[in-house]
């Protein structure tokens, strides 16, 4: 029987799959890239950011990484584009644009 997320390939048979879909390891949400659902995109304007730390805790997808008490750029693999960080920022340091208008 296959029990780890990476073993649940598109080829896994019903005889090998785990009952009820249980995955016998934690932290599997990280492996599922939800960023491609995004239609709106937050953009971090670093020069305006005061590192006030209001945005990281409101992100429902933990898509604002924090290191040494400072936020880094968005994790676009997991950001779904909900815009809560844009709403909460008091310094206009987060822009919120259509995904198709992003600068390549």
């Amino acid at each position: 029987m296959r029990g780890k997320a990476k073993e649940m390939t598109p080829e896994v048979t019903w005889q090998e799959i785990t009952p009820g879909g249980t995955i016998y390891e934690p932290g599997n949400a990280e492996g599922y890239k939800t960023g491609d659902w995004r239609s709106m995109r937050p953009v971090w304007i670093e020069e305006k950011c005061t590192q006030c730390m209001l945005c990281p805790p409101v992100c429902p997808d933990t898509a604002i990484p924090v290191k040494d008490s400072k936020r880094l750029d968005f994790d676009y693999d997991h950001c779904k584009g909900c815009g809560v960080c844009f709403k909460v920022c008091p310094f206009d340091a987060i822009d919120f644009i259509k995904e198709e208008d992003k600068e390549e």
Partner: protein
Amino acid sequence: MSIRERLSGNEAIAVAMRQINPDVVAAFPITPSTEIPQYFSQFVSNGQVQTEFVAVESEHSAMSACIGAQAAGARTMTATSANGLALMWEMLYIASAMKLPITLSCVNRALSGPLNIHNDHSDSMGARDSGWIQLYSETNQEAYDNLLQAIRIAEHKDVQLPVMVCQDGFITSHAVENIELLEDEKVKEFVGEYKPDHYLLNHKEPIAVGPLDLPAHCFEHKREQAQSMINAKKVILEVAKEFEKLTGRKYEYFEKYNLDDAEIAIVIINSSAGTAKTVVDKLRDNGIKAGLLKIRMFRPFPADEIAEALKNVKALAVMDKAESYSAIGGPVGAEVKSALYGKADGIKVLNYIYGLGGRDVRADDIEEVYNSLMDIVKTGQIGEIYRYVGVRG
């Protein structure tokens, strides 16, 4: 030596639960099953069980709490009736799909509307496709025995499915009858300890339960779930054999009553089987070859075995204490006819709806059904196959 007692069906279930001493019971009161959590909460307050009793705010919450607790690794039980079962609906499917061996005592009551608190089978019959094993009980003794066996069936490694043990509201649940109970130690030994391979509170193996299951895998999971129901057939008989050794009481998929040489027979579920047996006795006294098949296990459905048991019958009436509004009959009728197709063709089969909303089912009603079967055998004419008995007009 077993213990002779006098208990109602609800008391019998509550006593079984005390003897099982589950880790968690989450329940919400609804007539006629209210007494089960009521008696059980007294056992909790008295310190007779070590169970965590969760007094929830609805049946949806009751089943949700059961799912959470069972996934955490706790042996979990609940009880409900009618609209309570209906309010659990979406969670019933989740419990079975997550392969959680929860046990539920369903005290059968008419599902509203019109608003009615009395017995029929519309509640559990509506849940027949929810992936739960369903065992039906004619008496308080059978309800007690079925619940003890349900724990073993549900938790078996080849099954891991929730089990619903049904009995008739008021008729069985509130009528006090003689019963033989097992000693507490024997029940404890019979049900054993719940030892799941994987559970949420196991700190040595963190797991994810109930994850998103998209088209690449969901189909395989449903097939695996279906296999568990297929496997349950064998396990139900194995557990019954072990139970028989312990108690002397024999359980199978169904009970045959004077069926082997019967020319006319009825298929029936739960307490009305008792009424029907007295009619069979009377007919037999008059030289009429009448028989009866009482279904105990409705899910999984013992199709091949039922076809085999009924193959020599000339005319058959399948009794349904629930409508399915298919305009051709009830749920038991559909299953039995489907079972007979290609295996026992040529039997003339009527499907009767009876006893809805707690309408008293008298011996006369059952005799009327057998009389119709006799007419069919005599004349060869079957007439309308979708019939009601006991309704005015």
